[in-house]
């Protein structure tokens, strides 16, 4: 189990984020059951496991995206600084503003330019934001996403005109523009080539200094490269995902406590 980390010395904000007994259903059928995890702040937690074990489903419970699927429901508690985002009266859009998400397939909004993509979350949020301020925010987040140098001269080009790796970094810029404290990533590099993957991973590590990042990945090397802590999920015969083991990446990979973890790490299945 991961001990609650102390307040960091330099005063960077510490966000408590944890899931307790989260079970996700598709039309009454559970896809993952009773997942309890604490995500240490300002670090990367990797979620690994074979395909179909419910990692992505669980991830979507963390920002209340799962319930957007028809007849999908969630049980359990996901608490952000003590507030349960599943409380009655807690609006999903508030949860999603605080908990961002990067999807597997890089998907900038197709009808918008690069800079428009970057600030899309700001523009359509119901408040009016001045054009100048929008451009400033766009530059800031594009820099933070390590994309500025590559696009600064072509900001008005469509977002979809970029390469796959650049599009994904644009999606990161778009997500962090609304200043979430948590960033969820669902296999963000699986559609990218190795060089783009490595650049994205560098970005993830850099962002994790100020954000809590939870990354679902089926690439064990990636987990080893970027994540401080790793959680392993597996689905049994009933095809319901469960949390098997969680610990520091080091410990999970070299001295796993559970045999199933060891089997997965060593490639015996999955």
């Amino acid at each position, binding site marked *: 189990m991961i001990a609650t980390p102390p307040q960091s010395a330099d005063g960077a904000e510490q966000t408590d984020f944890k899931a307790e007994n989260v079970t996700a259903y598709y039309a009454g059928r559970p896809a993952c059951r009773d997942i309890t995890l604490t995500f240490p702040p300002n670090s990367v937690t990797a979620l690994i496991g074979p395909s179909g074990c419910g990692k992505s489903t669980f991830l979507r419970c963390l920002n209340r995206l799962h319930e957007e699927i028809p007849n999908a429901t969630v049980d359990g508690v996901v608490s952000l600084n003590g*507030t349960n985002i599943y409380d009655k009266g807690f609006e999903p859009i508030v949860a999603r503003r*605080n908990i961002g998400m990067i999807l597997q397939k890089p998907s900038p909004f197709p009808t918008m330019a690069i800079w428009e993509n970057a600030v899309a979350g700001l523009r359509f949020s*119901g408040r009016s934001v001045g054009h100048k301020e929008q451009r400033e925010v766009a530059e800031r987040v594009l820099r933070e996403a390590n994309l500025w140098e590559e696009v600064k001269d072509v900001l008005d080009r469509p977002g979809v005109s970029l390469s796959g790796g650049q599009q994904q970094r644009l999606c990161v810029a778009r997500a962090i523009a609304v200043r979430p404290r948590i960033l969820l990533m669902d296999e963000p590099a699986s559609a990218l080539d190795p060089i783009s993957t490595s650049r994205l991973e560098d970005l993830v590590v850099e962002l994790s200094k100020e954000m809590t990042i939870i990354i679902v990945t089926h690439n064990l090397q990636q987990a080893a490269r970027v994540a401080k802590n790793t959680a392993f999920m597996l689905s049994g015969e009933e095809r319901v995902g469960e949390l098997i083991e969680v610990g520091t990446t080091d410990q999970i990979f070299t001295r796993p406590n559970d045999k199933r973890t060891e089997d997965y790490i060593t490639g015996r299945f999955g």
Partner: protein
Amino acid sequence: MSVEVQTGAQPLDASPSGRVIVDRALVARLKLSDVSFRIALTVAPLIYVALIVALFLMLAKGSSEAFAKFGLSFTWNSVWNPVTGQFGGLPFIYGTIVSSFLALLLAAPVGIYAAAYLAEFAPPLLSKTLGFMIELLAAVPSVVYGLWGLFVLAPIIRNYFGPAVQSVLGFLPIFQGPIYGIGMLTAAIILSIMILPTVTAISRDLIQAVPAAQREGSLALGATRWETVQNVLLPYVKTGIFGALVLALGRALGETIAATMVIGNRPHISASLFAPGYTLASVIANEFTEATSSIYTSALIELGFLLFIVSLIVNGVARLMLWTIMRQR
């Protein structure tokens, strides 16, 4: 401790203190926009359904005078005399059914086998081009078909085709009698061309959707591609093709202008295909603006209501069949 509620121009976003700030006013406004959006959107389908119901009701209402006077005998009475005020719908029902079924008889084999060619034998570019051309047939306005039928097909039938057929098969009642050029046969031919795209397009989609395993299994047994089409693929999709044919029939039943221009517009029932006839749609088209009395108008609307009900049933059944097939994929 952790949810600090503020109103005013505070963002939804994070704050350095680490608490979750919720701008209640903004969130409430956004939630309202979502709710009103959903409500506003639901209005559209409601209007749509109301329209369809109104269609039924208004046609029924318009028919009520004629229905009150003639009752169900309207459907088997064959006297249509606006002068004496006697209205019976049988000639039109007969004309509609015969012309449509005959059109289907002509269009079905051509359409199905054309679809087979497009789906199985034609190289991709040719298949796409020919397919597009056949689809364009559906886009041709009805009045253009009527024009062509009236000035091109009718003379051909009157001068060449009709006499030729009559000389060989004139002993059959369906080929007897004077040949005017316009008439049931001409109408059926024009209608068949108009419904051909429906048959071809749907059949082609159905054939293309047959799993490869079926095709390969047949070929592996030593069948030729033609035999595969004939003995494996077409039987596999026969329910779907039946649905397509019913849909095409529905189109033929309702076709007005082209039929009016070539069918001869005579409210008589005749065994001969060369004789003029009359369809439900044609009589409405021809006589509606001339209807001088309210009973006349009502009788015509009743014919329209009949047409509406029949096509409702035909289309309803066809769509149900095709929908079930699509669901199984």
